[in-house]
């Protein structure tokens, strides 16, 4: 289906991971307006193209990480290589 490049385990079938969706910066709950908070909760970019997304390596290293994937080709940009430094934080 889709080989997801886990920074720790290397390429794994998507069924070994959990897709957590688009990765956006969480606003500070003490500072945001209600509308901003709800936009953060519900609204999506859903681009046809490059998307920053969070994955959870359920059956492997159990780490969360962020990857960039083209949603029209499912190709990953700069896939992390295991052994190298762990990718962006989620």
């Amino acid at each position, binding site marked *: *289906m*889709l080989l997801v490049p886990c920074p720790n385990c290397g390429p794994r*079938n*998507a*069924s070994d991971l*959990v*897709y957590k*969706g*688009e990765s956006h910066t969480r606003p500070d709950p003490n500072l945001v307006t*209600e*509308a901003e908070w*709800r*936009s953060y*909760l*519900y*609204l*999506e*970019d*859903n681009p*046809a193209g490059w*998307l920053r*997304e969070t994955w959870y390596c359920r059956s492997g290293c159990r780490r969360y990480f962020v990857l960039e994937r083209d*949603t*029209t*080709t*499912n190709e990953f940009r700069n896939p992390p290589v295991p052994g190298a430094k762990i990718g962006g934080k989620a």
Partner: protein
Amino acid sequence: MAKSAGLTAAREKVGRRSADSSKPPRYSAAGLLSRGARKTTWPRVWRDVPLQKTYDVVIIGGGVHGLATAYYLATNHGITNVAVVDKSYLGSGGSGRNTAIVRSNYLTPEGVAFYDRSLDLYNSMSLDLNINVMFSERGHMTLAHTDSALRTMNWRAEVNKLQDINSSVIGPEDVKKLAPSLDTSSDPRYPILGALYHPPGGTIRHDAVVWGYARGADHRGVEMHQKTEVLDILVEGGDGPDGKGPGGKVTGVRTSRGDISAPIVVNCTAGWATLISDMAGVKLPISTRPLQAAVTEPVKVFLPTVVVSGSLHVYVSQTDRGELVFGASVDPFNTYQVRGSLDFTEELAGHVLELMPGISRMRLLRQWAGLCDMTPDYSPVMGFTPVEGFLCDVGWGTYGFKAGPVSGEQMAECVATQQTPKLIEPFRLERFSTGKLVGEKGAAAVGH
């Protein structure tokens, strides 16, 4: 006036003229025979006319939702200067790829009322559109394999009964009577504990519904433009870049075949919904996921009802030709690719055999996928947006085929009266900023 005269001339007769000339002509066995004998080809079912520069309403997306909206605009409200534009062919999206299941046993009172109206419209559709849509009211059964699933079924049954929907919870013995091929013993890993049974549910021929609405709309003067891709939406006076976004007003659309001006633009593009709404500067709570389905070789009819299992992520029905049609839940990540996967087939086969061990030697013929526009609460997004003149009928996820007729009817009313009809009030985009979600997950995640 000149236009309607041209209309009649442009349209060849496809069959016997119906008694009621407000409807498109009827197909008949005699017509079929005489055409066969004369070896004539069938004429176009809707006209292919030049694209004009202005319309009263432009509808983006030639699936069941866009076409039904156009049909009801013309039929119920006399608004006929309407163009439906599609980047591909009519029915090329989810409307031509779905597994054609219809039902109204949803979980929320809002959902039940809405989908029930759609079933009413489906019931009279063959007569209204003069085309055989092959509605098969064969009953719909949602299996429960766990106590919590059984609890949700009971909850749904009570919500349904309150609104006069034929829906009840039955035990394993009755499940076995309705569908003897199901394994109702206690042997499987997830034994069948009961089911929510909904006799008015069933299947319908999806392509006939699409063509029926297209033909009916064409008959009333609506234009269908295939291979016409919308590249941009023209908006003035909005808060965002280029005058788009909230506070703005739609003036038209830019297409691959030129600009069209129109005061009202309706987004009916399902899986592509956010790409279109981005063009107007409107953000939606929608992510695009593929949904896959598969079909087996045909065998003698043995499965009389639609069978759904939420716990096993699978549903199955048998077509009149005898093929088993399978579906599951959406693929596990967002993408615009419509490709089948082995993961899907493997999981599907395992789960189906758990339900019906007897079909282990049947072969799959085909598998395919379509794009679904998923919302966080499994309910649609309908009606006005913060951009004046830009309306949405999207968020149809994996369950929008059955909603086609009622959505078309209500969206047409919304456009014609410039007010949100009562039936679709709960589904307005505002609910995501006020937090009033309409949680249908319990009734819509698998059992389309």
